[in-house]
């Protein structure tokens, strides 16, 4: 791996981390519950992208599986939270 690629990967990860921090600001500030759920879902999506970038960084196929798992769990948790906001309970 050339230094150019590792610098590019580092810059990308820093930008992702900054985006996650900004989303955390929105998560803590609110103002309502749906804003917090939206910010948490965004953090999950960016986490999936981080896993894909780490798969490039470490030349490992294992990170693809963890990216799939993160996408799946993010979907399940966001849908459960949205359902909770809609009805007040997750499973009716």
């Amino acid at each position: 791996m050339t230094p150019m690629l590792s610098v590019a990967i580092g810059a990308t990860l820093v930008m992702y981390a900054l985006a996650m921090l900004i989303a955390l600001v929105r998560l803590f500030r609110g103002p309502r519950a749906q804003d917090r759920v939206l910010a948490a879902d965004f953090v999950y999506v960016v986490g999936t992208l981080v896993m894909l970038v780490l798969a490039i960084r470490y030349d490992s196929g294992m990170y693809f599986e963890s990216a799939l798992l993160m996408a799946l769990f993010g979907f399940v948790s966001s849908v459960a939270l949205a359902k909770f906001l809609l009805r007040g309970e997750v499973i009716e």
Partner: protein
Amino acid sequence: MDIPWHEVVVAALLPTSGAVVLSAAFGLLRLPDFFLRMHAPALAATLAAWIVAFASIVHVSARTGEPSLRAVLVIVLLSITVPVTTMMLARAALFRQRLAGDPSPPPL
């Protein structure tokens, strides 16, 4: 300097996706209304995810010498799940705002 061409492609694509994700986060922070804010994360789930998947395909294919399409699986999963999440969240937000007596969607 003999930099392999695929590393140039990957090194150009990855910071682009980082910038897209960062602009999506700024949209999430700065847009004034919830229904406007819902538009911002779609940027990360579509454009940035496609760019990263393409970079990953180029990198792994060039390293192993055979086409590798595993990153497409993540794209397929994201493009199935993200619209469902967005729809559910929009309906929940609309329901809650109407329950609270807000005129929603708000007048422009």
